């Protein structure tokens, strides 16, 4: 064999190998459908083991489906990149705020025909189901959990500051006073706020609702921005006072969701606002000591004050084939829904989760109704391993507080605008709140008009 022939052959082999690497598919050699499902990143071994057990149970129940897992958690700054790049798992989760937009743009798969077959399909709370529905009422994304915002607090810091951890604040004046006392006596941030990656807007909108405001007014197809209101001004003034008059907000004003959870679990933050079921993440990803944790209902002040509520939708990739879509809907039913609707599944899930040392019983709002929630809690009572008493200030009130859905139009873009507002208030003592809100409202209106 000549040297030239040899090198030519080698080059061809390299080229063929490179091209072969581009091939792919969703059906394995044995004719099984391969389904990629999402698992939260950063979980400890126990949580991963619990998830793996569930995957094996699913594969046993569905012999024609092979499940692969992919780390994924919705994040404002990376979601669209993954969506556009086609790198999302076949089944993924996202907040309520993204559902309608993705459906309108047909960026997720239409699974409405398959979802209709769920035996509990008619029992979804209509208000919650709306987040995953298309204009014709078809359910393209399944609501798997719902939450109301709550005030999380570190009981140990409360004690160190001379405050009673069993008597958390119930007004914003008390929040401010307690934050000041924590900062003065412990040197840690008494109250902290998320400000980046759209979370600043999310929490500021929560405060606005808690002070009786709303960020948009809907009238038919038209939405009017209502950022520049006395309620929003009051919310920002509260933050301004805690930051600049009391110096009780620590020294980090660029928190994202992960960052603030980390600092809270590490005892560097006394209080912060986030979803009521956040304990699960704090335990699994930030190893919070249960004794440190406390959660209470968000203080509400003024007429029309309410708690911002949202939730999580499970959706299927727009590029999924019919067989993958069918497998994906089975997975959604098996992994996310049966534990809420079926006693055996609820008990099996709670047992597997508890055995792996993960959280069972963190306070979530039901996607169906309170009766379903109560029933499920009865089923899994023996496996509940969260500090129930420490959550009582929240769980005692969570069904009584008026729940207000997140804004529906250009939600994340308006949140991004508000990120800047809240950052400015926390980093510039002389920031003019009225001027910033007037400007933000103009920009938000432009976004709403465009949407």
């Amino acid at each position, binding site marked *: 064999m000549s040297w*030239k022939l040899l*090198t*030519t052959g080698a*080059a*061809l082999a*390299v*080229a063929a190998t*490179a*091209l072969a690497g581009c091939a792919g598919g969703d059906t394995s050699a044995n004719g099984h459908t391969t389904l990629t499902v999402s698992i939260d990143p950063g979980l400890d071994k126990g949580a991963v083991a619990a998830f793996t057990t569930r995957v094996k149970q699913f594969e046993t129940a569905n012999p024609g489906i092979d499940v692969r897992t992919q780390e994924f958690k919705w994040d*404002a*700054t*990376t*979601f*669209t*990149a993954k*969506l*556009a790049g086609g790198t999302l798992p076949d089944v993924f989760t996202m907040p309520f705020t*993204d559902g309608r*937009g*993705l459906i309108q*743009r*047909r*960026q997720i798969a239409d699974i409405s025909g398959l979802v209709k077959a769920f035996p509990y399909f008619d029992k979804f709370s209509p208000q919650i189901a709306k987040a995953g529905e298309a204009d014709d009422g078809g359910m393209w994304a399944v609501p798997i959990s719902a939450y109301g915002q709550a005030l999380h607090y570190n009981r140990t810091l409360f004690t160190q500051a001379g405050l009673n951890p069993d008597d958390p604040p119930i007004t914003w004046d008390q929040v401010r006073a307690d934050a000041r006392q924590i900062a003065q006596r412990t040197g840690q941030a008494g109250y902290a706020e998320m*400000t*980046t*990656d*759209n979370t600043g807007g999310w929490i500021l909108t929560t405060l606005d609702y808690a002070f009786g405001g709303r960020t948009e007014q809907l009238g038919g197809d038209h939405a009017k921005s209502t950022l520049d209101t006395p309620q929003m001004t009051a919310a920002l003034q509260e933050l301004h006072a805690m930051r600049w008059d009391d110096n009780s907000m*620590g*020294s*980090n*004003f*660029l928190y*994202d969701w992960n960052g603030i959870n980390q600092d809270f679990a590490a005892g560097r933050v006394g209080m912060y606002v986030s979803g009521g079921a956040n304990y699960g993440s704090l335990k699994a990803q930030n190893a919070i000591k249960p004794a440190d944790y406390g959660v209470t209902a968000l203080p509400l002040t003024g007429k029309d004050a309410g708690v911002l509520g949202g939730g999580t939708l499970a959706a299927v990739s*727009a590029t999924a084939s019919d067989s993958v879509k069918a497998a994906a809907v089975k997975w959604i039913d098996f992994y996310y829904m049966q534990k809420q609707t079926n006693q055996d599944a609820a008990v099996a899930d709670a047992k597997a989760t508890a055995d792996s040392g993960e959280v069972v019983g963190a306070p979530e709002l039901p996607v169906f109704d309170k009766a379903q929630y109560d029933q499920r809690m009865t089923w899994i009572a023996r496996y509940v391993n969260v500090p129930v008493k420490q959550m009582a200030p929240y769980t005692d009130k969570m069904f009584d507080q008026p729940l207000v859905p997140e804004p529906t139009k*250009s939600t*994340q*873009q308006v949140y*991004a605008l508000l*990120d*800047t507002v809240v*950052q*400015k208030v*926390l*980093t*510039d003592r002389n920031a003019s709140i009225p001027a910033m809100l007037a400007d933000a409202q103009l920009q938000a209106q432009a976004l709403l008009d465009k949407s």
Partner: protein
Amino acid sequence: MTITAEKPTTAATGRPPVRRRRRSLVTWVRGGGLGALLFLLPMLVVFTAFSWYPIAESVVMSFQQTNLVTAPVFVGLDNFRTVLTDPLLWTAVRNTLWFALLALLLGYPVPLVAAVLMSEVRRFRGLYSALAYLPVVIPPVVAVLLWKFFYDAGPTGVFNTVLRAVGLGPLPWLQDSSTAMASLVMEATWAAAGGTVIIYLAALTSVSPDLYEAAEIDGASVWRKIWHVTLPQLRGVLLITFILQIIGTAQVFLEPFLFTSGGPAHATTTILLLIYDYAFAGTLGGDYGSATALSVLLALVLAVFSAVYFRLTRSWGTL
């Protein structure tokens, strides 16, 4: 297909001109042309797929409205209008220029001074080079996490503790609009200087020792040797690293993205971060048309700048 052999000139060789020899496809194949092409094929495929095609696609996309799932719609120059009328663009341009200026003031001389000093030392030069290069091998995300910890704005933060020891601070570092950008530049300089130091050190080895000896005979001090021998001899490399630095700083993304997400209050939003935000930050926004339009504009500006720069400085590097 014919390939023309290179023709030597009479002036260069002093010989009569050689007649052009025409090669047929068969002679090209026999001469190993096919093998060479096949060897090139993987590289051509990879470059086409991952570099040239995306560039062409980006230019096309800058005239489209698309969410990358449904069919794109051509919108003419709308995306360019959107970008050029966005008030944030000018904030981003101003911030990028500010970053470039700070990086030039801090990041350009530091590697040069370090390289010159290292070239002067007789012992442990290898160790110093390795230490200078060490930050380059640390993954950027790890480096940023490390510096985030250093930049803790509380009185017990690492840098603030050091400042307190000398009676200064505490500084807000990343947490204030006035200090955030400078903080990013410091980390970026630390992270990137090692690579430039190595380039300068390599260039310094090509400086003839005779020049230094001549300077010493003339009684030149160390400073005068650097000024009159080292710097002129490095001029070509300095010009290249200057333009690379400008292009690099115009495309700064990692630091503002990982440290501050463009905050506080857009104080560190750079052009590349704005491009990213157009495309991805809205989660549903996905304004890929505006993102690619701004990318095309940035590429054009940098291409024009580079061409003008090289034209103006063409003679400087060879003097």
